[in-house]
């Protein structure tokens, strides 16, 4: 294997994890992570993201494949020798130690001089506003404070790699938003390669420089938030990322007067498929469009589709409008908060043709337009 030596770089090469009982939790995982990147593993629970993170940490054995840090295969290297720091979902603070000793623990274990350790604890405590809590024990802290202590403990050293396993999952919404920004700012400042596991797509989109979307142990797509959002590689990614979900329906390509149309139930949407090989279009197809790519139209506009409002979800900033019509799949659209329609009203919509994604209906992969 030829591996360039990169500080803080991480390569995951054909990594597999089997659990007893023939459970294949992580399947042929391949990833190249550059120094300083903020990588988010996202996926539904049980998708293997935490298992992969634990394999990187060395807390879980690797059934096959290689994990390479700085050009060195670390499969058999114990966690303490991997130069990593990890934040656990349930914080995993040391309950018998004061906050300052919790934070200092990684330094103590690496025989950092006492004075230097104290200075670094003070520095990181100040950064995370823990200075007044240093003498307390974890039992006397709130959830948010514990979370910050866990973060401080991982930050106190300058590891090659930060691993974070859903560190914000147990916080309330407001604190979560705050901590999210804090973590992003810290990571940008320190420039330490970070792998962040979450099932929350908002966290994934806002935090990651690149996102690895996983499902059933398989890497579905690995790319920037924009790539993942704008060009989902398959139906799973299309459906998982984005809220409200992408509208997805079974479709066919039909020709009429030398013009190609995409079916939307009984409706027909003109579409340019010149870039797609014909044989791919013979198989069952699915089409998808994000709610914000469906526009309101006027009654007389050519191609406008008439639908009925079945439900409204007003978030204050915008309104998700759920539409039904006979012979047409249900659709969700996003409109401005000043939308005046009511449940039961008729409205007319138009799909932005260039924003429609087409997928193979059976295997789910995207057919690029």
């Amino acid at each position, binding site marked *: 294997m030829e591996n360039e030596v990169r500080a803080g770089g991480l390569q995951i090469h054909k990594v597999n994890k089997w659990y007893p009982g023939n459970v294949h939790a992580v399947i042929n995982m391949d990833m190249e992570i550059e120094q300083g990147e903020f990588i988010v593993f996202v996926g539904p629970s049980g998708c293997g993201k935490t298992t992969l993170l634990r394999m990187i*940490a060395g807390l879980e054995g690797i059934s096959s494949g290689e994990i390479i840090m700085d050009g060195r295969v670390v499969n058999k290297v114990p*966690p*303490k020798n*991997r130069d990593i720091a*990890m934040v656990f979902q349930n914080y995993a603070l040391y*309950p018998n130690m004061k906050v300052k000793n919790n934070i200092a623990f990684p330094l103590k274990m*690496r025989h950092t001089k006492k004075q230097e350790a104290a200075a670094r604890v003070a520095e990181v405590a100040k950064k995370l506003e823990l200075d007044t809590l240093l003498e307390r024990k974890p039992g006397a802290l709130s959830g948010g404070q514990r979370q910050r202590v866990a973060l401080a403990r991982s930050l106190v050293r300058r590891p090659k790699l930060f*691993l974070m396993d859903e560190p914000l999952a147990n916080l309330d919404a407001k604190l979560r938003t705050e901590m999210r920004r804090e973590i992003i700012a810290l990571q940008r400042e320190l420039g330490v390669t970070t792998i962040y596991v979450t099932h929350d797509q908002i966290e994934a989109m806002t935090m990651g420089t690149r996102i690895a979307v996983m499902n059933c142990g398989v890497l579905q797509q690995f790319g920037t938030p924009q790539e993942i959002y704008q060009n989902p590689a398959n139906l799973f990614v299309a459906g998982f990322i984005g809220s409200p979900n992408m509208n997805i329906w079974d479709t066919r390509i039909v020709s009429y007067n030398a013009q190609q149309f995409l079916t939307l139930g009984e409706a027909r949407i003109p579409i340019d498929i010149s870039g797609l090989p014909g044989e791919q279009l013979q198989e069952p197809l699915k089409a998808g469009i994000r709610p914000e790519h469906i526009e309101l139209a006027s009654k007389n506009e050519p191609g406008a589709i008439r639908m009925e409002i079945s439900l409204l979800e007003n978030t204050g900033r915008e309104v998700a409008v759920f539409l039904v019509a006979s012979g047409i799949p249900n659709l969700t659209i996003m409109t401005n908060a000043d939308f005046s329609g009511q449940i039961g009203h008729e409205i007319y919509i138009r799909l932005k043709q260039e924003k429609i994604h087409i997928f193979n209906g059976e295997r789910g992969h995207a057919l690029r337009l």
Partner: protein
Amino acid sequence: MKKIFICLFLFMIAAFVWVPLWMLSSGTLMGPGELSENLAPVLESGDGFAAWPIFAFYPTFQAYAELLFDTPQFFNVFWNSCKQVFPIILGHIVLGAPAAWAFARFDFRGKKVLYTLYIVLMLMPFQVTMVSSYLVLNKLGLIDTAWAIILPGAASTLPVFIMTRFFMTIPGAVTEAAAVDGASPIQTFLRLGIPLGAPGILSAVVLGFLEYWNAMEAPQAFLKDQTLWPLSLYMANITADNAGVSLIASLITLMPPLLIFMFGQKYLEQGIISSGMKD
């Protein structure tokens, strides 16, 4: 009002526990005459029932003086008990705690079989293993030495069982965090296992102390030399005409376990383990 009733109720229950202790204490202040008068119906063939006043009518420290100044063998026996029980407890901590940690935190071949064996050994009463223990100790030339009591006691399986249960309640994430933070398995045991398992260790210590402080079978079986006898055997051999000394000796015998328990109680608090985790 309700509170007063609850207090009264609890006080009554507590009184039941304290009555024998009170009787013991008040008895120590009675002279031989008063004692034999009170106990005559039990000890001699008197009529009626034994009577026991709440306070001694003629309080005297005579029995105390007799035990403390005229009964040197009492101190010898007391020292014997200490000499046998404290090394056993030390053994429980030094041998038992690491064994328990291994059972609770590591996966190794044969763990289940070994643990089952431990439990089986724990369930066996002394009488079952007495003969085989005797033969082994005899072969080792330890019969009639304190080691005959100390070595089997120190390797007892009950404390391992108790501590294992406690160590198992320490969340895996805590020790994993330590591993990531750079702690070796031994450091993890010393810095996290012992402090977090302290309630379990203390429970084992308190229970072990009570068991071995009061043990009679093993000393009786393995110690022929009476100068090696611990308090438990000595107490059983004080005769009725020496009831006063017996009562004080009982009181003194009671002190170490009581102190151990009072000391241990502080550490027997539960719930500290999970306080490092999420709410």
